[in-house]
């Protein structure tokens, strides 16, 4: 068997590839809304809070005697991420000055809470490492199904309600004056961000989740003119770096999450460096529109006015 066929037929690699493609597609779609809402760091905040959720799931699992003892870690992360993201959204809605501080408290509280609770649950910090930095090698069949289900929700909301979420994120005041359910839509963005964090946790890890949400958007907006194309381009970049990163780590023993993120940053560097060359050449025509002047110049005939 050729090595490539061998890679593609390995059940472990198959599961990892499915997870990586879905995460690579979803994360930048949600990231586009977050960047547009000026909440680029929300993914990070959710990631930190989700760590407490992982440990909490572990704790509950060990009390209930579930086997294996981390069976409830992912559900715990989902619950904590959703609750955390909704709190962040409420803080944002209230006002920005105190919001900064509240977010910082959640960041640090999330990590500290996770480390403390995992100890109480009888685990060690080493148990947390795989959640912090990803462990795609341990993706189980049930993990893949959960990822598929959550990705379907994320894509359904993110793409199906794309226009409404765009309207709310672009101009909240106008959205309110149009009677759009601004609060519900904002919370939907928060919830799909939380779900994205939990499915990306296995692939890139909680500390690097946000990179996969934000960096592809940064790449795409260098070139795209429209919101729709930014989102599409970001998703293509996300899928590409996830796939390439995963394949690289199949051949070399390096951590997949970090590889994917480094690749994304390299793509950004290249895209930014090549932008002056690749982006549509400067228009040869005059960029000033052809309109009648407001003022009448002394040496022009009066008819220029009308």
């Amino acid at each position, binding site marked *: 068997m050729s090595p490539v066929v061998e890679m593609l037929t390995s059940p472990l690699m198959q599961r990892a590839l499915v997870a990586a493609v879905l995460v690579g597609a979803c994360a930048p779609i949600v990231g*586009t809304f977050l*960047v*547009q*809402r*000026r909440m680029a760091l929300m993914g990070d905040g959710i990631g930190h809070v989700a760590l407490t959720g992982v440990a909490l799931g572990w704790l509950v699992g060990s009390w209930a005697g579930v086997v294996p003892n981390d069976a409830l870690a992912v559900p715990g992360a989902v619950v904590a991420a959703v609750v955390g993201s909704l709190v962040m959204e409420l803080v944002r809605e209230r006002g920005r000055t105190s919001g900064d501080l509240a977010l910082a408290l959640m960041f640090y509280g999330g990590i500290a809470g996770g480390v403390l609770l995992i100890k109480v649950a009888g685990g060690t910090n080493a148990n947390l490492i795989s959640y912090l930095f990803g462990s795609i090698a341990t993706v189980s069949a049930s993990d893949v199904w959960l990822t598929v289900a959550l990705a379907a929700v994320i894509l359904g909301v993110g793409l*199906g*309600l794309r*226009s*409404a979420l*765009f*309207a709310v*994120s*672009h*101009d*909240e*005041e*106008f*959205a*309110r*004056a*149009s*009677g*759009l*359910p601004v609060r519900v839509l904002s919370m939907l963005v928060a919830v799909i961000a939380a779900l994205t964090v939990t499915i990306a946790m296995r692939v890139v890890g909680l500390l690097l989740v946000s990179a996969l949400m934000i960096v592809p*958007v*940064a790449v795409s*907006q260098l070139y*795209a*003119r*429209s*919101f*729709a194309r*930014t989102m599409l381009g970001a998703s293509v970049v996300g899928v590409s770096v996830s796939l390439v990163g995963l394949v690289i780590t199949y051949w070399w023993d390096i951590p997949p999450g970090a590889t994917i993120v480094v690749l994304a940053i390299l793509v950004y560097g290249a895209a930014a460096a090549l932008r002056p060359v690749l982006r549509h050449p400067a228009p040869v025509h005059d960029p000033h*529109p052809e*309109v*009648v002047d*407001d*003022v009448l110049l002394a040496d022009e005939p009066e008819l220029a006015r009308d």
Partner: protein
Amino acid sequence: MSALAGGPTTGAARTADLDGAAVPTIAAEDVSVVIGGQPILSHVSVTVAPGEVLALLGANGSGKSTLVRALLGVMPATSGTVRLFGAPLGPTVPWDRVGYVPQRLPAASGVPATALEVVTSGLLHGRRLRPPRGARARALAALESVSLADHAHRRVQEMSGGQQQRVLIARALVSDPDLLVLDEPTTGIDVPTQATFVDTVARLHDAGTSVVVILHEIGAFAPLIDRAVVLRHGRVVHDGPPPAARADHAGAHHVHEHAHPDPEPPPTGPTLNVEVP
């Protein structure tokens, strides 16, 4: 355009025959807004009849934008009631009949958006979360009406201030509203486009649209305006026929003061600065 000349009389006549019978487009009673303990609006009552054009006047910081936000439910009123088309503010309001041009576009985020995308978002409302069929054609037509058809696929972030303002106008016009609320719509817009815009509003007015417009200079809108409400320190100090402009402000060398960074339009007509007895 003939609509411009016929505007004021038809408007006044329509208001007269519907007086009492029709549901007012806007009925705001005793609206107060308090922000951070500061009273921004105090006991403001305003009614706009169907087809009426109401000008909202007052100095910078007098509460005009806040009043308009409270009327549209953008900013909750601390007390008082607002009804739009007879429905209390909330999901029962026919939001598809409302068009709003805010004073300015929110500060741009990094994600690009084309003029077409921004205008298309004007077709969404309370009960419609996805653009309707034919949205693209309608959005292009709205951009055409503000002479921006060539710029449909440009990033709004890269447009000039006046072009952005025209995109906002197109976004309000695209839904063909029965109530148009305009917060200084012609600020920063060149004179020919102002005239086109006033023509458009005149046409809508003839078709029965109610208009609330915040202005500092009545200028080209003068023939359209049926009634004026003047705010001072968050209170209504005048509600009736448009007051005369203050003569000493009509000169070309009078300095305009704006608290916000929008570019000034060129002085087109008498500056309105009202003397209330």
